């Protein structure tokens, strides 16, 4: 295993960086899209609710691989050229956003109705009441499930391996096929994934504790 780490250190480092960058980009954008979708879902406007529901149901119920493949082999033919990295990251963002929307929506609904009503009665608009009163409380509630989504996101970034995105899993596949040492290679790859997911796991646990004190 140390032999592999030694011989393929540049490939593994590149894979680690790509996985990290892809995950961070997907995490930021899926959080933004997810929160917007959640707000649309509880906005009370029929059109918004329908559109948001269609999005969530569609992306939540098809395999991530198909979404990524679509951006890798269909979009470049008809619209813009997309690399494997871009296709995989876009697919990952859109897919995760659907799950985050559901999580955040549940969090918002868990905030007592009176909070919104009280905020509105003080003269705040719907957006302001959301921004300053409801969402801050909702976020504390959804931190544990949101943490799960983020960890899934990092692991799901391995979809890049199937669209030649040069991520950690892709490098793992190549190293395994070159060295024929499948067992050691994938154990090493798993350990590197742990390096990414464990700190996140602890961070989420810390935030959960830290914020629940208030």
């Amino acid at each position, binding site marked *: 295993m140390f032999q592999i780490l030694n011989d393929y250190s540049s490939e593994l480092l590149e894979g680690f960086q790509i996985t990290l960058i892809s995950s961070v980009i997907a995490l930021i954008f899926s959080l933004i899209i997810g929160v917007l979708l959640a707000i649309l879902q509880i906005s009370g406007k029929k059109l918004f609710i329908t559109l948001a529901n269609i999005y969530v149901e569609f992306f939540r119920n098809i395999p991530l691989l198909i979404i990524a493949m679509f951006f890798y082999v269909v979009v470049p033919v008809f619209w813009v050229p997309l690399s494997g990295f871009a296709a995989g990251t876009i697919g990952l963002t859109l897919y995760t956003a659907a799950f985050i929307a559901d999580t955040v929506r549940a969090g918002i609904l868990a905030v007592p109705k009176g909070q919104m009503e009280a905020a509105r009665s003080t003269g705040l608009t719907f957006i302001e009441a959301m921004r300053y009163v409801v969402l801050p409380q909702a976020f504390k509630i959804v931190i544990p499930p949101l943490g799960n989504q983020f960890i899934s996101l990092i692991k799901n970034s391995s979809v890049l391996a199937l669209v030649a995105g040069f991520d950690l899993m892709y490098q793992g596949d*190549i190293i395994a096929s070159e060295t024929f040492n499948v067992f050691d290679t994938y154990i090493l790859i798993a350990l590197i994934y742990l390096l990414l997911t464990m700190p996140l796991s602890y961070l989420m646990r810390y935030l959960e504790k830290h914020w629940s004190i208030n």
Partner: protein
Amino acid sequence: MKKLGTMTISILSGLTLSLLSACGTQDLASYDILERSQETASLTWGVKADTPLFGSMNIETRQIEGFEIDLAAAITREILGDDAKVEFIEVSSKTRIPLLKNGNIDAIIATMTITEARREVVDFSEVYFEAGQSLLVHKDSGIASIEDLDKSSVVIGAKGSNSVANIRELIPGITVLELENFSEAFVALRARQGVAVTTDNSVLYGLSAQDPDYIVTDETFTVEPYGIAVNKNQERFLNEVNKALQTIKENGTYDSLHEKWLGSVINRND
């Protein structure tokens, strides 16, 4: 009690199997494939069923079809006469030599490259197809050979294939996208993720048969001569195979089969 019964049965069947296989090897050493095939008027060939144009299963007819299949049939008829029975058994790169050694098949004609390592376990006929690594490109790409590629080119291959290592050696620093298999590599090529797919031309011809806009470059930059493999100590049979191959090359049968299966994809370049 029940457990003991199962155990006895498995031990007994194990013994029977090893006895049977012992008989098998004894037979194989002394037995002459040519004699047996003349008695039964039949030959059994190990062929590929997953390589379009060379040997692939036709879903409608449930028959294996291809260049190698027709070649095997022609050689069999040349050796045993027109009424001879030709049987085909599907093999993979992994199973073909064990099946030949066990006597399940009489000869292998399955996109098998003649190599020194393989010569130590089987005997090969004369070359029946000169394969080699080549490029599959769009017909308007302007790429005619590996000379037209450089460091900045993006080439597509499949994970774990030798062809990827070969092209990296020939053009150091070139970007190679490695997909799961050659069908996916071809899909990525059509999505313009790279300028060429590279592997043996025998595989590329099969891919290009699916889309007339893609051509296989004429030049090959590795040499992969395909030969028919027969078991060791079957010189008489091997001689007959070589003679038959010679005959069908001379009488035009080989050329017409070559034209039938590969003509349309090879001539697309002109």
